[in-house]
């Protein structure tokens, strides 16, 4: 990275970390001994003993709320352990603040991107570690250095752009670049591919392998088994906060891991039932709006219409446009054969459209409010009798969704922010299930959701279809849209570029159309 060298000091020497190996490859670099974490009465991580070997890729899998993120936060000093010990290069360490972890070379890309949306990409990458000249920040130097790191990683991202203007997936890549460039020995990824497209995931995997080649130890958390088998050397399984085992990747398989994770077997994840297509629920003709142009498609009762594309292809924008969040600039929408003008979210909901949006943190949840309130938010009008809310019904509905979706919480009163990522996603879905609708738009509904619950959610889709609803399913995870969609539309740069019937095209074909080569 020549661009970097001009301005670098010892801290920002890019990705070249191999020179400072603390322990030889294959020897323990970090050992957790009976490490435990309690949140009040909740034991998020029961005393766990796991050893990470220098230079390995170590995957961690487990259901939602199993304690994976908790483990990561402990190792990066984001939260404090309740008891237990951590040994780094053979010596006990405290790790009770992020600075200490970073100083030792432990970095993480967290599940939820925790960066500053108002700052530039470059400023975020250097945050807390700015290049300065006698106290003055060297903005240009930072932008150039950041750009060369991004280019070097093969991420096609502008360093000068405001972080908030990027998609969640792209922000995740920025977070990755940030972690990768700070003299890392030990790098943790918490579900990094959740919001990435295939192409971006491939870039990320190349980066991970490269870092491993340089001697960095990688911890990789994912709900996607195929990624674990593709990348990892060893895999540890957590269940309900308990470490239930560690396996060499060559000595285990899908089924064993899933059984370890959820203590039962599932024969089929992609649950697909075909229903005879009913009347047309919605039809768009040449609909255009901010971020999408000229989209014509129909959704009929009993079918799932899948939208696939790279991130930024305009699928979510189309969904928001159809939902009345943004005004459309051209084209028409027909609702059950009648021309309608959906100019507000309320209007969309009153017609019978529900939208579970893409970003649970920014659009889906009121994080510092109770789970119950989040679930009931769309239906308070219905729960109101006279002046006040019918408390009984409010409680019943919240509890039913928590039960049906197996949201792992002691009570509906717990704040949404105290939920694990996957459980937060379930709250977003539960909210719209309780509202009910003719047309459900699910934008990345299974991001961060574990295998067992995924299967559950797909089964739920079938129930909705059976009851005469239609579904628009947006996903960047090709197997999901591919296996579930009765009709699959491919988006590229804001346009609908191809459509296929159920399994009519191959994965490769769909991918090529999405990338547009």
């Amino acid at each position, binding site marked *: 990275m020549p661009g970097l060298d001009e301005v670098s000091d010892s801290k920002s020497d890019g990705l070249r970390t191999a020179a400072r190996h603390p322990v030889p490859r294959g020897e323990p670099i970090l050992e957790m001994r009976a490490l435990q974490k*309690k*949140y*009040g*009465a*909740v034991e998020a991580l029961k005393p766990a003993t796991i050893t990470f070997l220098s230079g390995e890729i170590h995957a961690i899998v487990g259901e939602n709320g199993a304690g994976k993120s908790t483990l990561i936060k402990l190792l990066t000093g984001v*939260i*404090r352990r309740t008891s237990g010990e951590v040994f780094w290069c053979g010596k006990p360490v405290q790790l009770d603040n992020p600075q200490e972890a970073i100083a030792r070379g432990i970095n993480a890309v967290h599940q939820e991107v925790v960066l500053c949306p108002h700052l530039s990409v470059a400023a975020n990458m250097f945050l807390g570690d700015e290049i300065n000249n006698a106290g003055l920040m060297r903005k240009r130097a930072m932008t150039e250095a950041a750009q060369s790191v991004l280019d070097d990683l093969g991420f096609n991202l502008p360093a000068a752009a405001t972080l908030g203007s990027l998609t969640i997936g792209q922000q995740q890549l920025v977070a990755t670049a940030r972690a990768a460039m700070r003299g890392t020995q030990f790098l943790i990824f918490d579900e990094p591919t959740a919001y990435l497209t295939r192409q971006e995931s491939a870039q990320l995997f190349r980066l991970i392998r490269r870092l491993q080649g340089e001697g960095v130890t990688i911890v990789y958390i994912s709900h996607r088994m195929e990624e674990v088998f593709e990348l990892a050397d060893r895999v540890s399984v957590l269940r309900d906060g308990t470490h239930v085992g560690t396996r060499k990747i060559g000595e285990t398989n899908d089924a064993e891991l899933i059984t370890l994770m959820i203590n039962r077997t599932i024969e089929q994840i992609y649950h697909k039932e075909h229903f005879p297509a009913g009347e047309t629920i919605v039809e768009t003709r040449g609909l255009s709006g901010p971020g999408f142009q000229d989209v014509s498609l129909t959704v009929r009762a009993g079918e799932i219409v899948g939208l696939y594309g790279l991130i930024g292809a305009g699928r979510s924008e189309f969904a928001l446009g159809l*939902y009345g*969040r943004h005004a459309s600039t051209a084209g028409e929408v027909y609702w059950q054969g009648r021309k309608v003008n959906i100019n507000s*979210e*309320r209007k969309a*909901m009153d017609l019978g459209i529900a*939208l579970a*949006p893409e970003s649970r943190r*920014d*659009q*889906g*949840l*009121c*994080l*510092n*409010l*109770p*789970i*119950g*309130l989040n*679930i*009931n*938010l*769309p239906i*308070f*009008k219905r*729960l*109101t009798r006279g*002046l*006040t*809310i019918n*408390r009984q019904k*409010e*409680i019943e509905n*919240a509890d039913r969704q928590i039960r049906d979706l197996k949201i792992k919480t*002691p*009570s*509906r*009163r*717990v*704040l949404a*922010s*105290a939920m694990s990522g996957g459980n937060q996603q379930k709250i977003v879905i539960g*909210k719209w299930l309780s509202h009910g609708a003719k047309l459900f738009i699910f934008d990345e509904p299974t991001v961060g959701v574990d295998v067992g619950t995924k299967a559950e959610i797909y089964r739920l889709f079938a129930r909705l279809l059976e009851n005469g609803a239609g579904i628009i399913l947006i996903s960047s995870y090709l197997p999901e849209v591919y296996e579930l969609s009765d009709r699959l539309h491919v988006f590229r740069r804001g346009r609908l570029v191809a459509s296929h019937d159920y399994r009519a095209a191959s994965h490769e074909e769909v991918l090529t159309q999405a990338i547009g080569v």
Partner: protein
Amino acid sequence: MSAETVDSGTGPAPRKGVSILFGLTLLGLLLFLWLLLGLATNSFWTPNNISNLLRQGAMTAILAVGQTFVIITAGIDLSVGAVVGFTSVIVAWLLAAGVPLWIAIILTLAFGVLIGAFHAFGIVRMGLPPFIITLATLTSLRGIGLLITNGSTISITNEAFTNFSRADFLGVPSLFWMVIVVAIPAYVFLHLSRFGRYLFAVGSNSEAARLSGVNVHRTIYLAYILSSTCAAFVGLLLASRIGIGNATQAEGWELQAIASSVIGGTSLFGAVGSVHGPLLGAFILATINNGANLLNVNSFWQRIITGVLIIVIVYFDQLRRRGAR
């Protein structure tokens, strides 16, 4: 469960769990202060002083409740003190012009509604930060009030009006009854109705609220109108109490109201708050002022004590909230 909030159903209503503890702690603090002052002075537990205390606290309490609605939406209303002064002028002016009492009262409250609607308009349509738009009205309203009165005061000769604030009902000052008149509907509104839930949702994440079908703009209008109307109501009470309309009255009351609200557990980041908290907060502040007067503590010290108290209470509230991090 440390993460539990203020609620018994699914809304942030103050019933069970930790919040009741916090409420009880505040109540305990208030009673403790009363006990202490009772022991330290002879004059605290006299009917006269208690009435006085209740009157003092009542007006801040009503302002604090209105302020809390706004803070829950993650906003702030700096104008309430100025609205109190301004509306005292309006009612005095209307009465002086011979407008019948009831009409004068209704018109004054209508001014409160208008001011609140103007704030919301500035925030929603013009995209101004709440801090700015309410700061602007803070200074302008004082100016308009002074223009109307030409810099002086308007006396109120209507006996029925001025007697009200001195009257007692069932042995309790009528001003204190006004707190109850405001607090009960406020409680129903904030904790039992869906609009209350919407305030919390908008304060927590307005985009999520919007996508859930909540009319975010209307909710903001509601919050600011309620705050200004409470302030106009206090303007009426103040005019009745001092018998004049004067635009420079109630200087700094917005800070008293915000302090009461915050002492009562409202979070300035939005989405956390109740009705009973600010009420207790207001009476704690009033007690401190009252006690300091009785003990002949220098009024400069009163201000310092109030500041320290805000820090201590909010700090402990933060600790409680963070729970077992």
